[in-house]
């Protein structure tokens, strides 16, 4: 085998700490190497041409490039090799930058290491073999998990491009948090007015299969070929029969037992309920935890009044399995509940603000409901305790956010804007009221955002106080807010009628579980991780799985919508081809030596190992051996390491290659 070695200076990046010429000279002496040179920028066009020329002129069979990490330019050099007529998999990279020049100062020892790293790569490439990418068909069908604005946007984009979408929402209705909002910043459009048409469009779209009150139970397969099992939770109502007339809800005698989730606990709802009037689908659900029938077997009022006999008390959870090509995760966020320290959590909570103890200390979403025309007060600003108009309202920002000691290090990003909006809405509705905002900084980056905050301060006379609140307590029917004005350098005490806390956006508590199911990494807060923070912000490290909205990090509506469209575009890119090319790094079985113990099958996470009968000429089964399904194998090589007789080998990382690498050391 004729091997060529190409050592890159990467400008000064490698050249400064590694004597590249010396590495190239040393490599020239390695057995098998017939060509070795160094160049300033191997990844540049002239650099690549250098490689191509050497391959052609010296008839090289394989090349080693000593450069940056293979994660950076392996593809580039493979392409260059292919351009010169050799198989792209006859290329190995010695990582002389990230793993050598950038982490060492001493030139002699870094150069020695670089020579060894190059030798390892040369020894490995000796056992590389030409590989052909595996082609697998793409199922052109998307799964969108989460039916908030992000999920809705992604589903509509994909469906409007002509591809089928399965949209799964765990709540009885789609709409998410956006459906709870009153008006939206910075334009003050009515949230439901702009959202409801989208919800209806989803419902009526011929390409969208909507599964509400459902959750993803299991995910198998890989990019282009997922098999997803979805649990449809029992509504107690037959979806195909119910017309959404609402009679059952009206007649349910268990009227006010359960906190209305949509109203953030500011109102109650019956056992049989539709989450909110604009719900999509407009189908009721039985809350089995409070329904009389499930307690005593009695009542059945809903069943009696239903003209369509749609009520089904015995309904069980059911499961559907869908073939999916791409998955978009849009599971959104939750608000941090701040009343007490959560169990098993380093988060301290904000007991001193009295959330959960004082009825009129509420969070941002609760204020949205109070300000909403469809809310419990029909949009009149009335405080929850006595339904009186609060004349003095204090808004506190950064409750939980940007607070390493008691909450989270990150900024929840939307609170500056929605607090300005809240204060503004309040002032618009209570003209003689006073609004105070405690803030740390005002972060109003965004189109028309800064102007919006200025308007609140200048036109609507919202009083902004830079500082933190240390304590809230009740005295003579007032909430005494004790804080600090760090600009004036004095203590501030406000006797408020109501306090609104802008609590942090946190990840859905079930997000890590879902992430594990999907094989998507997540951070310590439970937010799902993108593959590259700048250049691949919606892709995950699991192929074919993309992120949209606040499941990734705190973000507002326009950002969520943009991200959702980006995720949809990524899915559509995938659907643009009928076949998908995959790295040919997969396991292969030597049927001749396989003893059929099937330990490989047990360790395979992808069910990629099957049993195959070997027959003699007479057609009799002489033995049963392992067989790798190329479409399913992802190339981890766990089978290879498990096989005692080494009858399974991972192409691209074969025993011979690794053996040679180890032996090339020292």
């Amino acid at each position, binding site marked *: 085998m004729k091997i060529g070695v190409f050592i890159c200076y990467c400008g000064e990046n490698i050249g400064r700490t590694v004597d590249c010429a010396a590495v190239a000279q040393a490599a020239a002496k390695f057995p098998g190497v017939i060509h070795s040179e160094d160049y300033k920028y191997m990844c540049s066009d002239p650099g690549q041409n250098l490689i191509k020329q050497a391959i052609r002129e010296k008839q090289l069979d394989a090349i080693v490039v000593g450069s940056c990490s293979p994660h950076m330019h392996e593809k580039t050099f493979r392409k260059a090799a292919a351009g010169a007529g050799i198989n792209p998999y006859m290329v190995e990279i010695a990582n002389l930058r990230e793993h050598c020049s950038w982490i060492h100062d001493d030139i002699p020892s870094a150069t020695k290491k670089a020579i060894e790293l190059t030798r390892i790569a040369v020894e490995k490439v000796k056992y590389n073999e030409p590989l052909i990418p595996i082609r697998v068909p793409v199922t052109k069908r998307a799964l969108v998990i989460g039916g908030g604005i992000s999920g809705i946007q992604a589903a509509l984009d994909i469906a409007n491009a002509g591809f089928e979408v399965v949209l799964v929402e765990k709540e009885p209705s789609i709409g998410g948090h956006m459906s709870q909002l009153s008006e939206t910043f910075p334009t003050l459009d009515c949230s439901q007015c702009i959202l409801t048409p989208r919800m209806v469009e989803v419902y009526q779209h011929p390409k969208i299969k909507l599964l509400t009150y459902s959750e993803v139970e299991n995910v198998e397969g890989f990019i282009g070929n997922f098999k997803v099992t979805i649990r449809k939770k029992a509504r107690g109502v037959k979806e195909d029969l119910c017309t959404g007339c609402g009679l059952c809800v009206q007649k349910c005698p268990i009227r006010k037992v359960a906190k209305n989730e949509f109203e953030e606990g500011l109102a109650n709802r019956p056992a049989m309920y539709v989450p909110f009037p604009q719900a999509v689908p407009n189908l009721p659900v039985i809350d089995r935890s409070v329904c009389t029938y499930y307690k005593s077997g009695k009542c059945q009022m809903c069943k009696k009044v239903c003209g369509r006999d749609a009520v089904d008390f015995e309904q069980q959870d059911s499961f559907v399995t869908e073939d999916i090509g791409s998955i978009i995760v849009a599971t959104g966020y939750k608000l941090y509940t701040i009343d007490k320290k959560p169990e098993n959590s380093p988060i301290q909570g904000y007991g001193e603000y009295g959330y959960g103890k004082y009825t009129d200390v509420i969070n941002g979403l609760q204020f949205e409901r109070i300000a909403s025309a469809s809310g419990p007060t029909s949009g009149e600003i009335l405080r929850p305790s006595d339904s009186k108009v609060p004349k003095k309202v204090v808004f506190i920002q950064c409750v939980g956010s940007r607070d390493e000691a008691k909450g989270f290090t990150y900024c929840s990003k939307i609170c500056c804007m929605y607090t300005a909006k809240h204060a503004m809405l309040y002032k618009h509705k209570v003209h003689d009221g006073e609004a105070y905002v405690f803030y740390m900084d005002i972060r109003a980056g965004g189109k028309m955002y800064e102007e919006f905050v200025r308007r609140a301060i200048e036109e609507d006379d919202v009083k902004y106080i830079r500082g933190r609140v240390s304590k809230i307590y009740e005295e003579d029917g007032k909430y005494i807010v004790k804080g600090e004005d760090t600009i004036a350098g004095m203590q501030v005490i406000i006797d408020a009628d109501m306090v609104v806390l802008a609590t942090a956006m946190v990840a859905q508590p079930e997000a890590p579980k879902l992430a594990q199911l999907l094989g998507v990494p997540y951070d310590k807060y439970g937010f799902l991780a993108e593959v590259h923070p700048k250049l691949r912000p919606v892709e995950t490290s699991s192929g074919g799985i993309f992120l949209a909205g606040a499941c990734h990090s705190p973000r507002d509506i326009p950002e969520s919508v943009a991200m959702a469209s980006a995720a949809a575009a990524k899915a559509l890119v995938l659907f643009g081809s009928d076949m998908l090319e995959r790295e040919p790094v997969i396991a292969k079985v030597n049927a*001749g030596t396989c003893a059929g113990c099937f330990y490989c099958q047990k360790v395979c996470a992808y069910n990629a190992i099957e049993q195959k009968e070997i027959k003699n000429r007479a057609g009799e089964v002489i033995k049963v051996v392992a067989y790798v399904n190329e479409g399913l194998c992802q190339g981890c090589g766990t089978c290879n390491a*498990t096989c005692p007789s080494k009858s399974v080998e991972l192409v691209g990382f074969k025993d011979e290659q690794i053996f040679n690498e180890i032996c090339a050391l020292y």
Partner: protein
Amino acid sequence: MEALQKIAKEALASKEAAFIIGYARVPGSQKTRPFIARDEAEAGQLVFDEYCQNNLAVYLTRIARPKEGKMGIVAKSCDVRAIVALLQENQIKRNEVYIIGVNCSGVVEDPAQPLSKENLAGKCNMCQAPQPAGTDTVVGEAKPYERADDKVGKLLAQLDSLSPQERFAFWEAEFEKCVKCYACRQACPLCYCEQCIADKSQPRWIESSASVRGNFAWNMIRAFHLAGRCIGCGECSRACPADIPLMLLNRKMGMIAMKEFNYRHGSNMDDPTLVGSYNNSDRNDFIM
């Protein structure tokens, strides 16, 4: 003995079994040897007593499968565990074997001497159930026997108390004796690979010459490949012409399987195997 022969004859006559893997007396000696009875006359030579040390399960994967009928086998309770292990590992199917369980009262260590507390095979010390379970039939009677010192356990404890350097030196001296005859592998009922890693030349992970270094590699790899799988019959140690205490390594792996996973291979054919399964709560404290 008559009962054993009677059952064997019946199984062969009824074609239930194509042959019976059992023990026969070495002529002119009290020792026994593995013997395959293929007809009723040969079944008359089958014996079982305290001189039947071999784990015959090893033959189940070595012998040509009969076209018709099952492979009959005479099995002590320890041998049954090897058979169950083979079932767990897809090497045989339950309907391919006809197991004649024999109740056992311990076997000898040295076949030149009669059975006694001092001359008791190491595995019999560890035996938890002399009556085989899950066999097609059982013959004989298990008499209680006096247990001797657990020599392997003692030696292992001694070894553990040494420094790593001393342990290395101990094994260096032991592996110096290894001639790579692979008798340990031949005698092991769970070494059934068609091509052993030791025979693989591309690449040659284990040097083929009998160097100390290659012997280290071979014996470590063999012990590792048996980790969580060894059923403790001790045939490897018994087969070793150089008297290398191979059971020390196997016993150590067995102890880990018990301590970390409460698992004994070959206990139940439906048990998931230790290798090939995992638990989120597996020990993690040694990983930085």
